[in-house]
């Protein structure tokens, strides 16, 4: 019983601590997104911009790094990852479905990990 109370308290504390961290209006977030070409760049950035709260988006063709500034009050990095995967590009955290990958233009069919 004591144990349960302790766990409850700890988890409650942890939760409140998280609630207290202020959501960042200008969160700089960088993640790896798989892709090949100029056309991929346009698709990835377009998908990033479709996520509410994304203010800037830039995908670098050679390093595969997607850098965004996003407003955490409107969406989370997870929302961004899902939106990128939805248009067929694997991110470090979320993989695209096979169907979405198959929809990509031939030049964009990157090698999946």
């Amino acid at each position, binding site marked *: 019983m004591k144990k349960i109370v302790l766990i409850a308290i700890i988890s409650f504390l942890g939760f409140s601590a998280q609630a207290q961290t202020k959501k960042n209006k*200008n969160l*700089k977030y960088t993640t790896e997104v798989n892709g090949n070409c100029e056309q991929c760049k*346009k698709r990835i950035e*377009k998908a990033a911009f479709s996520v509410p709260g994304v*203010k800037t988006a830039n995908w670098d063709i050679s390093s595969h790094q997607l850098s965004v*500034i996003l407003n955490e009050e409107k969406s989370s990095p997870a929302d961004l990852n899902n939106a990128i995967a939805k248009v067929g590009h694997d991110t470090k955290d979320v993989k695209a479905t096979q169907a979405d990958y198959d929809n990509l233009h031939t030049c964009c069919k990157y090698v999946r990990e």
Partner: protein
Amino acid sequence: MQKNIMLLGMLLLSAVAFSQEDLQEVKVTKKQKGIKKSYTLTSNTSVITSKELLKAACCNLAESFETNPSIDVNFSDALTGTKQIKMLGLTSPYLTITEENIPSVRGASQAYGLSFTPGTWIESVQITKGAGSVINGYESISGQINTELLKPLSDIPFFLNVYGSTDARFELNTHFNKKLSDKWATSLFVHGNTRVAKNDMNNDGFLDNPLGKQINILNRYQYYDPESGLVSFINFRYMNDKKQTGEVDFDKDVDRGTTNHWGSEINTERFDVSTKIGYVFKDMPYQSIGFQNAFNSHNQNSYFGLNLYDIKQNSFYSNLIFNSIINNTMHKFTTGLNFTYDQYQEFVNVNDYSRIDNSVGAFFEYTYDNTDNFSLILGGRVDNHNRLGFFVTPRLHMRYNPWKNGVLRFSAGRGKRSANIFAENQQLFASSRTFSILDNSGKIYGLNPEIAWNYGISFSQKFKIFKKNAEAGFDFYRTDFQNQAVVDLMQSPQEVLFYNLKGSSFANSFQAEFSYEIIHNLNLRTAYKYYDIQTDYLRGTFQRPLQAKHRFLGNLEYETTASDSGKQWKFDYTFNWTGKQRLPYTASNPPEDQFPDFSPSFAVMNAQVTRIFSPVFEVYVGGENIGNYKQQKAILGANDPFGPNFDASVAYAPIFGQMYYAGLRFKIK
């Protein structure tokens, strides 16, 4: 014998070994192009890089457009020696000319301002055709030219340029640069030029180009702190320019104000102070605020024979700009406020035209970019000016990439300005023409403000011919004047009339361009231009005088691949053909003092060779007007300069003839 064969064999072997070594190292270098055209910018803007500027070694901003198809460089008249520029067929008063986005050539400096920026100071020039951005003001009608000077934080410690030419012109440019700390740097630019000898190649008793002396000093400071996002520039500048022209026998100490000999002096002194401060918000790279302030004092004292012309302009300019986004960087905006104050003291003979102009305005510009193939800039501003009144200036630019390597652009906009009729037309003082202003109800010398709409469309496409890069494009622009301060030279050779436009006035311009890399390192650039510029004058509708209907430009550049030690040759050749031009009306003069209705067509060729010995040292030699074409009759009534038919203002072709020059550049990096 055996020894010889062995030696030969060894030599061959070593050569083979050598060439194999060469093969191992493959350098892929992207060459900097002289003129850069963007396929993603919304406006029709080309950038002249410092590389292109070196093609015409001489001398100042006015002369740096010789190889550029967007801008026509007219021939310097015998009087001022200054080359006037035109864009879309309209002279520089219809352009907004800025230096680092602060209006620089305006008002009193309109006639010679471009010659007050030495070429070696320039980092790059951006040329926008058609309606400009609202951020820099309401005055631009046919285009915008912005000059970026060398930046102290990225400049080299020392630069020296020495130049001399067969028309007795000498130039000296020295640049010093010092990094004061990791955030502060300063540059000191000192320019001097002089023309020491009198030239009269056409034996009409008049100098072909003015004697001159100019000293021009710029000291600038740059601050940049990437941690805090703070950027700043502070500039101090002093310029003193003296010109003397007229009859060869004219002695300014004896003959000034007399009819012994005709002569002219134009002396200009100028001070500039400008500051810029910018801040990029922390964690928000898309949001920034900037504040620019500029003060300058421009003082020209001049006489042209018995005509006196003095103009002094003190002006203050202030601009506050805020940049940010709406939701994301696909939707950006720029907004801000301008303030302009101009105090003129202007005297034409005994008439006093002194006045104070001021204006305050607010602007907002929205940019949409779908990050793919379409972008749009929609801008507007409202201004309140003590002479122009309260008015709105809308501008629109659009860009669309219909397919790969193709770009289609459209622009439209309105411009409004007060014409400084004397400052802008001061070459006419070098004639016996009487100046008459036929209207008196307006607020600017009795005239109304000039208002024009400009519309333009352009397309360009990159492609390959035989695996080599090629580019073709065309553009068409139309400027429609609702009102214009008409300068009428079609009425009488003894008069120049100024009046408000009655009827129509327009300028159509069409340009077709083709460039091609013929073989590796050999580039060709060609352009054909057609202008139809008509104005309703009192006597009827005529093409604008001194404007060719057809022009052709060809530029050929070749450079050898730079060796490891930096040794390199560069060759450049420019061919300029100018069709016939309407000349001012002179048919009522006696036959010997008449111009034909149209000038003949002619071609002018320039060439230059540069030898780069190392990254530190290079020399160049070149020739202008190698074909030695000269205007047959440069001055009407040259034998009676105080008589009724004298006119030295009509320059439709080179007057001096061929000219050769040489110079050197020395750098410490």
